[in-house]
């Protein structure tokens, strides 16, 4: 049984990664190949030729069909083999599995599970990534660690003070109590940390130009299993949102992550920073891209180490949880519930049964 939920949408790529040619990527232990047809549609197929397993992603794309680079088996966009060397009749079994894909908010999502249950209405939204009202920097880093480590990391931002000091961490992050909510039906965990008189970390001081102390709000919204949103509001101390009208005295940053399992021991870390200020300002863009990449790499290094620690530890190792872990524990439990629902014989993602018990 995999450690991630089946019958779920996962972020496979940025739309911009699939333009010309073939993209090979393993998602949830499924080696997949993606390409864009001449009509602009994204196709997702299993990345193994049915003949001798040669990766189709290392093959040739011609006229919206993949020609295997080993013996020339040729597949159309549905995965059906339409040509094989010297064969008059194509064997009925000559097809590779096709995976439902959907483009939205600058992502290519792929459905992992029973294709008949794939419903694009279930995909959570991140519209700022594809909005003219925001400027976005983004990247993707491989983590040599299980995806649950990244979920733990992002659900408890008190680690910013210690792992990311000098970038996004200040003492107030670890010292400010959180409020946590869990929507049992929507499988969303929300963690809110509102710092009303905080030091401004360099990441925000240098990008916004604010010199003094700030109001810093962090509102995390985790749509299990894959999409993580951190709504960050930065404003000079004392500047609260108006009761009516736009909150235009504040700076808003939408820090967004796609948390996609690659294998049981590796993860795709899609990271994005969308801002509603200094739109199109190349200097600010460069600063945020460079510094956020540094922050992401600080996490990657830590999580790679933790994977080795977890892999090497004795059975039944008992970790300790405290108040700062309230949201992370909720995320783990939601994932556990979704994993159980995905394994059920008549799995229906919209009506996942609740699994009460240990967190």
């Amino acid at each position, binding site marked *: 049984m995999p450690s991630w939920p089946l019958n779920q949408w996962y972020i496979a790529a940025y739309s911009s990664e699939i333009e010309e040619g073939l993209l090979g990527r393993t998602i949830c232990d499924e080696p997949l190949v993606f390409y864009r047809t001449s009509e602009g549609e994204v196709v997702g197929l299993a990345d193994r030729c049915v003949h001798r397993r040669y990766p189709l992603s290392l093959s040739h794309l011609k006229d919206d069909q993949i020609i295997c680079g080993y013996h020339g088996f040729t597949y159309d966009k549905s995965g059906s083999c339409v040509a094989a060397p010297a064969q008059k009749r194509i064997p009925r079994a000559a097809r590779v599995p096709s995976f439902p894909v959907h483009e939205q908010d600058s992502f290519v999502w792929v459905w992992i599970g029973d294709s008949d249950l794939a419903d694009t209405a279930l995909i959570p939204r991140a*519209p*700022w990534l594809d909005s003219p009202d925001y400027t976005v920097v983004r990247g993707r880093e491989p983590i040599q660690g299980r995806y649950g480590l990244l979920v733990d990391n992002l659900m408890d931002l008190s680690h910013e003070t210690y792992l990311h000091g000098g970038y996004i961490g200040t003492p107030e992050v670890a010292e400010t109590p959180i*409020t946590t*909510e*869990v929507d*049992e039906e*929507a499988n969303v965990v929300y963690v809110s940390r509102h710092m009303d008189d905080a030091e401004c970390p360099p990441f925000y001081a240098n990008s916004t130009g604010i010199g003094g102390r700030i109001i810093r709000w962090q509102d995390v919204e985790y749509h299990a299993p894959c999409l993580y949103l951190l*709504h960050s509001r930065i404003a000079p101390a004392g500047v609260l949102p108006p009761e009516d009208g736009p909150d235009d005295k504040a700076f808003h940053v939408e820090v967004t992550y796609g948390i996609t399992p690659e294998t049981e021991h590796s993860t795709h870390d899609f990271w994005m920073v969308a801002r509603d200020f200094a739109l199109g300002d190349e200097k600010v863009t460069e600063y945020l891209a460079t510094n956020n990449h540094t922050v992401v790499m600080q996490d990657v290094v830590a999580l790679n180490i933790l994977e080795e620690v977890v892999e090497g530890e004795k059975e039944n190792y008992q970790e300790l949880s405290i108040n700062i*872990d309230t949201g992370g524990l909720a995320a783990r439990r939601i994932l556990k519930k979704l994993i159980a629902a995905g394994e059920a014989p008549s799995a229906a993602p919209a009506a996942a049964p609740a699994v009460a*018990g240990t967190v």
Partner: protein
Amino acid sequence: MAEPHTPVRADLPPPSRMLTGRTVYRVVWKLNTDVLVGYCWCGVPHEATDPIELWDWLLAHPDTHGPGDAPDGGTPPVGSDSAVRELVKS
């Protein structure tokens, strides 16, 4: 366990409510203490100093009420979240 008749009031600043679903569990951290106050979506509170114990209590509370018992509606989200939802709709 007998339920307290007077709801626990946690001493916390806004946001007062963030998610708008019908079955939302809420856990607040009492300021200047190590006490967590959890609210079942039916409104009944419980205090704990261990988040695992609190989640166990919330998820077990009570096993006789179903989603149909959820209170109607909810308050709109606050702060940047409301802007996010507006964007999603547009």
